[in-house]
């Protein structure tokens, strides 16, 4: 079942712009695979190449063991759910769904049975004879899904299918999509710029930028072990520190309050300017003296008034709270340490009961485990723009706005 869907060195240029640049990618049968990235990263172009709406400049597309690169859209066993649904306005819900089967000249009985069955699945039997402009956004979405699925495609292509819906509906449709996938078992190729959608729905995600795949993995792999600063910043929130890899710590030595457990090649010491040395898991075996960037996600920090007890692989630094943003289920702190403003998230399960909340201008201790920091060689200044900026200016937005396509 491997190599079910395979892109082989696929490239597509629009004039000078490389929309898709030498992409090689394999999607397994039956999985929900997401192409995730900001607008203009090439994810939609890649989907359109598979659908047959675009011809790649070079490379091949293999589907189910068959080279489909040169086939017109109507000869490929893939169906697309468009961002705007693209329901035929002059046809009823019933006829919209039946369109593909009628074009394929299936027997009337078979068409009737298939349409009725899928109408029941999306619970739209009562709306079968309505026109698309007489039903709601969520219903249109369901009709679009049914219209595609009734043809039993090998791959279902979803092009930002939830972008036009409001937040509540989007969350409900996500669950519905997942249920539908469980029911039909068809491979989903899901294109989105919304990391939340991709994370909650996908078996695997390919994060794309500038026509290239930046990282490919399960949602947890991508979030917990980002390979580049772009992935770290685009998926969730993070803090970047630049430092130089120093020699590993010897066993049993206490340095700057940090107790090293072992002379362990897996852990490296990192020198960050104006910081006490920090320890970090070195999964990439980056050599001594290299300049690297350390990424630590806000929720990996523990914030406390009292200095935490030193433990192996625990990094401890002191800082000053510059801003506190109460968000209900959690509180976000901006903590100043040397030149850095560190974003720290604290989930509270028993907020006011245990202690006085930490306030502005308080001295606090931040601690995090060496395993929770990631060293990255590939770093670009502009990726920091993806992160929420500290609110040091009036009018600054707290939440990052990723531009919709």
């Amino acid at each position, binding site marked *: 079942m491997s190599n079910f869907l395979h892109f082989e060195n696929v490239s597509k240029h629009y004039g000078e712009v490389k929309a898709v640049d030498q992409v090689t990618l394999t999607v397994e049968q039956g999985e929900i695979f997401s192409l995730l990235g900001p607008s203009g990263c090439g994810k939609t172009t890649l989907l359109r190449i598979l*659908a*047959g*709406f675009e011809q790649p400049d070079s490379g091949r597309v293999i589907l189910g063991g068959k080279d489909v690169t040169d086939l*017109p*859209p*109507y000869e490929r066993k*893939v*169906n*697309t759910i*468009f961002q*705007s649904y*693209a*329901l*035929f*306005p*002059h*046809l*009823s819900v*019933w*006829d919209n769904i*039946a*369109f*593909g089967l*009628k*074009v*394929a000249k299936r027997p009337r009985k078979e068409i009737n049975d298939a349409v009725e069955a899928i109408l029941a699945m999306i619970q739209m039997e009562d709306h079968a*004879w309505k*026109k698309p402009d007489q039903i709601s956004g969520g219903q249109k979405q369901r009709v679009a899904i049914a*219209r*595609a699925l009734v*043809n039993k495609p090998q791959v279902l292509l979803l092009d930002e299918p939830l972008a036009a819906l409001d937040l509540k509906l989007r969350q409900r449709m996500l669950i519905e999509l997942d249920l539908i996938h469980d029911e039909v078992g068809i491979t989903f190729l899901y294109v989105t710029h919304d990391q939340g959608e991709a994370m909650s729905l996908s078996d695997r995600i390919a994060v794309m930028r500038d026509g290239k795949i930046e990282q490919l993995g399960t949602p947890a792999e991508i979030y917990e072990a980002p390979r580049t600063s772009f992935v770290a910043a685009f998926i969730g929130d993070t803090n970047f520190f630049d430092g130089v890899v120093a020699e590993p710590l010897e066993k049993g030595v206490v340095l700057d309050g940090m107790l090293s457990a072992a002379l362990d090649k897996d852990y490296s010491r990192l020198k960050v300017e104006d910081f006490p040395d920090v320890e970090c898991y070195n999964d990439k075996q980056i050599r001594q003296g290299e300049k690297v960037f350390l990424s630590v996600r806000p929720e990996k920090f523990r914030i406390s008034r009292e200095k935490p007890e030193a433990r192996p692989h625990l990094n401890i630094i002191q800082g000053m709270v510059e801003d506190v943003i109460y968000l209900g289920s959690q509180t976000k702190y901006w903590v100043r340490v040397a030149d850095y403003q560190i974003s720290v998230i604290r989930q509270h399960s028993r907020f006011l009961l245990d202690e006085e909340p930490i306030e502005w201008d308080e001295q606090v201790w931040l601690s995090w485990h060496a395993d929770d920091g990631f060293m990255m060689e590939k770093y670009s200044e502009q990726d920091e723009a993806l992160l929420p900026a500290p609110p040091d200016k009036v009018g600054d937005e707290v939440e990052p706005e990723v531009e919709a396509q």
Partner: protein
Amino acid sequence: MKTRARTRWAECFVTLPSLVWLGLLFLVPTVLVFAITFKPATPYGGIGEGWTLETLRTLGNPNYPAIIWRTLRLSMLTTGACILLATPMAYYMARTGEVWRRWLLLLVVLPFWTSSLVRIFAWKVLLHPEGLVKQALVALGLAGPETMLLYNENAVLLVMVYTELPFAILPLYAAADKFDFQLIEAAKDLGATSFRAFRSIFLPGIRVGLLTAFLMVFIPSLGSYVIPDVVGGPTSEMVGNKIAQRTFVDRNLPHAAGLSAILALTVVAPLVAITVLRRKTSPRDALREEGI
């Protein structure tokens, strides 16, 4: 309730001027034309006293059904040809780039900068036995030296299509411009060939434009009189020519009015029939009918 009543009044007030305009300048003259049909003609071209069925009797002349049939046939052919030519043009214009599209639109509108009379006479020059088109066809061996391009039905049809074509292109382009071409992609995605997508999705999508184009071409075509007069011969007369002849040459106004009334009825009767039939079919059946 009060606000709704006020809106109703406001609507009436705003519609009033156009209602008065249509009533005075369209409805009254139409009724007058119908009425004059039943008046006797005077020898000096006036309208006599009393009522008579004399005009109706003369309209029974077997020449008239032939002329009316020719008028209808030429108008239908013109409309069909215009829509066949204009629909792919509109499709192309809506899909092409901004610059090209502006040039094409200019080309479509350009003929209106010259009087239509001048353009019709230009065709006469082109189709003339010594004219450019004739000479070219003979040179290419596509026409014999004796072939007559002018003064027949084909010449009338050609010039009518030429004259009416912009009136088909413009509404069809307006409809195609508003058409969401992603629907074509969706249709192909569902397995439809380009032609199937065009027929099952594009044509229904621009049906309002098709209807407008039909009316914009068919109705003026029915009334054409200059084109058959200039490039047509005695065997390609249309109702318009007869009406002009009765008015200006025979000075028989009731007769001209009778012909006009028949022409009006041939247009209005099918429209009324369609409207009545539409109302009788239930929306549910209509939905099924429009299925592919």
